[in-house]
């Protein structure tokens, strides 16, 4: 009876032991490293172990490199954490790039216009507030349209990015220094007004602490509050949510305001705590990379820490091997691509079980 059974049988797993899931992830990471090694050796004849060592060196080799890795991880993580509630609601917010930029612009505006008249603590508090408002606004607009007229939020949030980028370019042209240079330069370089301060002599410690706090709060919010529960119900099924008496519209708008606000806050951290300048590349594609962070971590904000760290590690490693071995950026992008391919692929094997047609069955089929 089984002669039409396919060679490979793919079935959705109902559940998987946590250790099995992590074993699959580990195996895929090992496989990814092996394929990368083949790729590196085949293309450049370099010793892959040395290349991996160089990547490690690039991300953690010196205390400064480690802090830079921490700084960039913090910002990427913060954006990922901001995306988590929207994605949990199955609202495709691909507009983080724009929300980050708006938060960044708001912060830069405060630093530029009020840098001379307000003390730094007030500047920081004010930038914090306006960046949250700016990011939230950028999130609310597509949410309202989605809630009222059921517009496509993927396109809408994506388009909002371009508006944000153009707006940023306009502001850069307005604030550029010197005129005509198309760059704002370091804002308040001499006075450091509005810059996040160093803690215990570590320039980026405060960024890390801030983001970890946001990460923990978001974890708590999504997992243990009524609103977090509403988000997951809307995400599972809007009809169920309606039946349960949840106002779907309100949840959508509220959740996107929160999502945009956290992304806006990431823009604040990027400008006041890291670059101290604003340009169209302040978000630098991190709004999109954070989508991977949020999804791979299945919206568990603590797992996001690991994913964000991995991605930043790969990026810093890539810069190092480019400079140490004279490998072009494309080579390191390929390595990054291979590793991501395997890690994303591992999720397939966690979701689905794959069985090959067993020998016994085939024999039976032959006998018939």
């Amino acid at each position, binding site marked *: 009876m089984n002669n039409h059974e396919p060679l490979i049988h793919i079935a959705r797993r109902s559940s998987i032991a946590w250790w099995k899931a992590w074993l699959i992830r580990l195996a895929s990471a090992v496989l990814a490293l092996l394929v990368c090694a083949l790729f590196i050796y085949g293309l450049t004849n370099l010793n892959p172990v040395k290349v991996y060592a160089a990547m490690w060196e690039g991300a953690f080799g010196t205390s400064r490199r480690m802090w830079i890795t921490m700084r960039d991880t913090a910002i990427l993580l913060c954006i990922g954490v901001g995306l988590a509630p929207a994605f949990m609601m199955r609202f495709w917010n691909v507009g983080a790039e724009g929300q980050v930029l708006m938060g960044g612009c708001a912060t830069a505006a405060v630093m530029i216009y009020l840098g001379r008249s307000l003390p730094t603590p007030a500047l920081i508090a004010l930038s914090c507030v306006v960046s949250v408002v700016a990011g939230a606004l950028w999130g609310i607009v597509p949410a309202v349209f989605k809630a009222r007229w059921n517009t496509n939020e993927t396109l809408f949030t994506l388009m909002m990015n371009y508006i944000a980028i153009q707006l940023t370019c306009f502001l850069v042209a307005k604030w550029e220094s010197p005129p005509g240079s198309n760059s704002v330069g370091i804002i308040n370089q001499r006075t450091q007004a509005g810059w996040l301060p160093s803690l215990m002599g570590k320039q980026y410690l405060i960024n890390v602490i801030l983001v970890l706090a946001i990460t923990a709060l978001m974890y708590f919010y999504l997992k243990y509050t009524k609103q977090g529960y509403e988000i997951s119900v809307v995400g599972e099924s809007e009809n169920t949510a309606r039946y349960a008496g949840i106002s779907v519209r309100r949840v959508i708008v509220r959740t996107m305001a929160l999502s945009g606000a956290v992304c806006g806050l990431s823009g604040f951290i990027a400008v006041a705590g890291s670059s101290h300048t604003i340009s169209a590349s302040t978000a*630098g594609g991190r709004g999109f990379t954070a989508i991977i962070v949020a999804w791979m971590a299945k919206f568990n904000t603590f797992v996001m820490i690991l994913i964000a760290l991995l991605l930043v590690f790969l990026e810093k490693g890539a810069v190092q091997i480019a400079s140490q071995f004279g490998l*072009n*950026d494309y080579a390191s992008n390929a390595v990054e691509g291979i590793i991501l391919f395997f890690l994303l692929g591992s999720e397939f094997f966690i979701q689905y079980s794959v069985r090959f047609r067993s020998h016994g069955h085939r024999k039976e089929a032959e006998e018939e």
Partner: protein
Amino acid sequence: MKKFFSLLLALCLVLSLSAVAFADGGIAPEDLKIGMVCIGDNNSGYDIAHITGLEEAMEAVGVPAENVTYKYNIGEDETAADACYDLAEGGCQIIFTDSYGHQSYTQQVASEYPDIQFVAMTGDLAALSGLDNLSNAFNHTFESRYVSGVVAGMKLAELIAGDELSEENFDADGNVKIGYVGAYPYAEVVSGYTAFFLGIRSVVENVVMSVRYTNSWFDITGEAEAANALMADGCVMIGQHADSTGAPSAVQAYHEAGHTVFCVGYNISMIEVAPDVALTSAGNDWSVYYTFALQSMLDGEKLPHDWSAGYSEDANFIFPLNESIVAEGTAEKVAEVEAAIADGSLQVFDCSTFTVGGEHPTSFLALDVDGDFNGDEGEAIRDGIFYESDPELRSAPYFSLRIDGITELS
């Protein structure tokens, strides 16, 4: 007394130690470690010019090739500071950054590492920064632009003599129309197109030039569009100060559509992309400065805040002439003009050759000290000559006069 002697002895010791330190200020070539921060990598013509310049310099002074660490694709943001910090901690004694926008980050790191020499190439803040270990350098690009203008002028003269221009190529006053595709409306570009224009006018007197800006250093489509708009307006010669091949390609296409038009490129030879229209390109040889900087490091000498040189030091040149289309006698004329620029007998910005608002300028303050972006000291015009990129003032261009005969369109 005893105390006095021990004090004297200590003083002698200190003095002799510092004397040793001074005599020993140089570095052996194999010990010199160099850092180089690039805005692009070996895919960008601008970076290639710097990378090859540095490599030629290292070979010239005997520094082994492995002593340089490159940081590629470093943006004009905090990653530029990251890269400089990293190179500083990695033991580099001299660190170059190749883009103007890296400068404020270079300055930030330089202020924390006073023993390391930093050079913000094409920058303008070194002298004003108050830092001893921050320098700027810029070639006399305007000189090679003037020479490329002479090449263009020769061609125009030939076209006029052969009666090959049509009515649309002249304005109402009978001047020949030429066009220029510029990146940004600031001094570096203004100085460049003015030099190009003066080079043309040294051969053909009745010319007017229109300038269109793209607001980007590298925008293939934008540069092509700007060139097309200029050509549609009747411009018969297109110059450029932007890094892509957009304009020459557009000029080649316009030529193939049956129009008479030629162009002059920048940084790389455009003959490959525009074989029938590209006359030559203006170029910079950065190896001259890099050699000077590395040799100074080896000799233990301080680098000046500003360094600038042109033909007199072979730091500028034009790319090989497109022999099949340049006017007869161009090579000889170019050689003559180059020699005159090199020995100083020909000054590109001789105020008697141009007017601003109908008058020959007599005074121009080059340096902005109070940060309002208007010059408030440093007289650049002496004895009727505008000295551009005078190392005594600043290596980065400051010629921002809009002279009569040139119109900025966008």
